[in-house]
């Protein structure tokens, strides 16, 4: 069940939009961060709030890179594999993450913390090779830098657990 507070916030935003459907992606982003991904329950909630049929919403949910219709980890790592990052050896970034986290591309770590996915050019080609984690960008990646980022995220997650 969606908490009343979140439901109220979303309803207000949708009501004040030019048209309810304009808020579809925003609403999915919010629901996704609450449920972890766009689960069937999240889809039902969203279509109710937006006044869209489940099919209309599915057309969007399955289209976009950053809407996840399957369970993903708390942190979704998207490594850019387009031309400039490719020239700057993006494969070494992917390989390093794979071996450090013991995860395959498309997979999620056993502890549910990380999902590893490819993504096309994220518009940070001047800082290739680059990746995003939960829509935050990290560029000029080296193995050391990746290790620092991953360690920080693991610590953050642990902190959230013990809080």
């Amino acid at each position, binding site marked *: 069940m969606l908490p009343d507070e979140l439901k109220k916030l979303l309803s207000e935003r949708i009501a004040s939009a*030019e*048209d*309810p*459907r*304009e*808020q*579809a*992606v*925003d609403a*999915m*982003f919010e629901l996704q961060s609450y449920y972890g991904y766009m689960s069937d329950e999240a889809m039902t909630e969203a279509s109710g709030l*937006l006044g*869209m049929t489940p099919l*209309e919403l599915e*057309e*969007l949910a399955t*289209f*976009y*890179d*950053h*809407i996840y219709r399957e369970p993903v980890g708390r942190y979704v790592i*998207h490594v850019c*594999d*387009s*031309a*400039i990052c*490719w*020239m700057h050896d993006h494969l070494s970034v992917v390989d390093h993450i794979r071996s450090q986290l013991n995860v395959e591309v498309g997979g999620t770590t056993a502890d549910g913390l990380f999902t590893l996915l490819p*993504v*096309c*050019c*994220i*518009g*940070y*080609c*001047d800082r*290739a090779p680059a990746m*995003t984690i939960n*829509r*935050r*960008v990290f560029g000029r990646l080296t193995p050391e830098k990746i290790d620092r980022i991953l360690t920080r995220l693991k610590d953050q997650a642990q902190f959230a657990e013990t809080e």
Partner: protein
Amino acid sequence: MSKYPLVLFQNRQPNRIATLDEYRQSSGYQALEDFIGKRPPGEVTARIGEAGLRGRGGAGFPAAKKWLAVPADGAFPRYLAVNADEMEPGTFKDRMLIHADPHLIIEGMILAGYAFAASKAFIFVRPSYESSAVILETELEHARHAGYLGRNILGSEFSFDISVHRSGGRYICGEGTALLNALMGKRPNPTKPPPYPTLKGLWDRPTVVNNIETLANIPHILRNGAEWFKRLALSREGMGTKLYCVSGRVNNPGCFELPIGIRLSEIIDEFAGGLPAGSEFKACLPGGASTRYLTREHYDVEMDFDTLAAVGNRLGTAAIMVFDRKTCLVATTLNLLQFFARESCGWCTPCREGLPYIRDLLWRIEYGEGREEFIPMIREMCKFSWNSYCALAPGATSPVESLLTYFEDEVREHISQRKCPYNAH
């Protein structure tokens, strides 16, 4: 420092945006004060038309002409859809602009809205630009407090507001008509005009789609005039400056504001620091992934719409992707095709089926399974892309066709040696 005047980047600083006050100190919002409610909207359009401002989103369509396509007796409300999707590989100028001087963009949007009597604008921002979206939202709030945005701007009759629309992320959303579908919460397939969005766009109302860089030019043109704008360019027919992104095999990748018509060689060698020692220029894509390879022969080409067209290429987004002699262009083109095939929206067959087909042929060539007859097959498939529903597929086949035009020998070498001469796979 650049020997050329900075216009769009004049307030740019390392690692932070120009504040509202800083923007005002550089005569920011002066054009707004001078025009909104004081001069007729048609005058904005006329001045921009005289200056010859062409769209910076890739197609180079004259801005004033697009606004004039909104009929005077057209329906209300009218919308401005601002394209900050920027998913063309190699392109990051709109991000640089937002992170340098957000109020310049905001002022440009308001003035454009005034020109064709729009009441609302949406800025369409991709997911990896979340930091840009946050900057825009914060600065829009400051503009609202200052009375530049909202109801009765500066006490005039004109009301206009702007909101940030976050995309779920797909390259096709940058195509103008797909962008409108995305904004309306529909599956972002392109639609084929007519009706043109300027007649029936968002929710069937007149809508103009403009790129962020296009809009950022407007306050400057209104303040300084058409003649000044033309003098900024180095080419005879050109106007204004351009944000050139340089990436790939260069010492100093980045985004540089330089005159329209500047020579490609000067951008690469002087501003982007040239190629690293031991690397030699082989080719570049001069305007993003959907332009054609440009070879050493045209290294000194003037970077302008018409001068690039004259050598069979396009200025596109002016994102220059540099490849050196050690980089395999078959593998590069394969990577580009992988991008386009993945990002195809799937609506029409030449793109949905054709691009993966070309990609597979290129893959075989790169991995030593190529055959002579693949070359005419690829050429044929590329021609089919012109039957597609939108410009994604012809853009996708531009690097492929030019690979066969300029580097057929390199492709043949792969086939005869049954392996890539550059990479060990």
